[in-house]
């Protein structure tokens, strides 16, 4: 337990589960109506919807900018000299794009890949990097933030924040609705969710079934990622509470390492699942009148 003034494991865990929350203080608070950083977990809780997790947001956008910067650099050099023999970073990015393109092509059978493939690339790499933050030792960045920068709370794994994963899932959901309506027309889209699977005489039943099916997509997408990463992070935190004595501490270190090795598998796998499911859902949005 790196943080000095948390005395119990309970406090330690609770501390690790609070985001750096910037929001409007609720009624009854001494600074009610004002905006500011929550100084405790319960305060953050009380802020309700009018708050933003600065750490999740910052790490999420920061990571996206980080990899987009490299992608853009490769894109610029590729545009300047398309036939050059690729080296280093460009090889990596091109291999990745090749992989994503093959993946998308095997699922998404429409000729126009210009929306879905870049989306798949963005999702995969972004989720991958967000998950990868889980491999940073749990106390490292929060410790630096707390004692170096004076930031009380700091969660560095954006995909353990349901706001982030559900944000991604709802964005994909928005795209599903958008492309469904664009491809089939509003009437076609409504017809699809109304006259399927039991014909027009059971319209309310169909509607209930299809709407639930439709809503299940983003919920399962977002919660799967959140659940996997949150539980993995939780285990890292729980193992970290073992750092109390020499023997148990060493055992804890070993367990941390073992879990991290296992987690190497989870990081790309969850990113891949999120991407593939997004592509599958969008394929369904593009497909017209197919049988479920």
């Amino acid at each position, binding site marked *: 337990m790196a943080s000095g003034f948390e005395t119990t494991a309970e406090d330690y865990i609770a501390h690790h589960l609070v985001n750096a929350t910037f929001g409007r203080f609720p009624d009854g608070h001494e600074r009610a109506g004002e905006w500011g950083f929550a100084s405790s977990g319960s305060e953050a809780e009380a802020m309700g919807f009018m*708050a933003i997790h600065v750490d999740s947001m910052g790490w999420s956008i920061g990571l996206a900018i980080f990899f987009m910067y490299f*992608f853009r650099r490769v*894109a610029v050099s*590729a545009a300047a000299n398309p036939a050059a023999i690729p080296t280093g970073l460009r090889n990596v990015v091109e291999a990745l*794009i090749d992989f994503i393109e093959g993946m998308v092509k095997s699922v998404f059978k429409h000729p126009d890949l210009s929306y879905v493939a870049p989306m798949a690339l963005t999702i995969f790499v972004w989720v991958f990097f967000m998950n990868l933050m889980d491999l940073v030792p749990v106390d490292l960045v929060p410790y630096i933030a707390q004692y170096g920068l004076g930031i009380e709370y700091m969660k560095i794994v954006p995909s353990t924040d349901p706001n982030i994963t559900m944000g991604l899932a*709802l964005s994909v959901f928005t795209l599903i609705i958008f492309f469904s309506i664009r491809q089939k027309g509003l009437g076609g889209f409504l017809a699809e969710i109304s006259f399927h699977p039991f014909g027009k005489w059971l319209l309310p039943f169909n509607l209930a079934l299809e709407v639930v099916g439709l809503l299940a997509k983003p919920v399962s997408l977002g919660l799967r990622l959140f659940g996997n990463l949150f539980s993995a992070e939780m285990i890292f935190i729980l193992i970290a509470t073992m750092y109390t004595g020499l023997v148990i501490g060493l055992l804890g270190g070993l367990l941390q390492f073992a879990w991290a090795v296992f987690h190497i598998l989870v990081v790309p796998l969850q990113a891949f699942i999120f991407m593939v499911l997004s592509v599958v859902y969008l394929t369904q949005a593009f497909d017209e009148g197919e049988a479920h």
Partner: protein
Amino acid sequence: MNINLTLFGQMIAFFFFVWFCMRMVWPPIVAAMVARQEQIAEGLETADRAKKDLDLAQKRAMDELKKARVEAAEIIEQARKRSAQMVEEAQRDARAEGERLKQAATADVEQELRRARETLRAEVSALAVVGAERILERSVDAQSHAEMLDRLVADL
């Protein structure tokens, strides 16, 4: 762990980064990859064609070589025939020349012989006349005894 504005923040970020990737990242890289693919395909095709050309040229060269060899053999054969012919001709010429020379020599010899015989005959007749004169102690009238002398000469 409450749902709050972060959700919308993330959605806005998502749409921005997807848009960025769609506009600024994906198309140039894919275009470059396609361009390179085409270039590689072209290169392979060119190499293939060059190999085919080389094979063809080698075959042609081999053919030319074979033809040249055949021609050379023909020329040598011709030359051999020609030389044999020339030798034969020379031999024939030489033989004819020898024959001719021999004949000329024979003719010369005969002519010489005849001439010697004439001379001898004339001398013998003169000698016979002188002898007869000595024997008869008088001069033989050459004119009156010409007939006789001629007969003598012819007998010799």
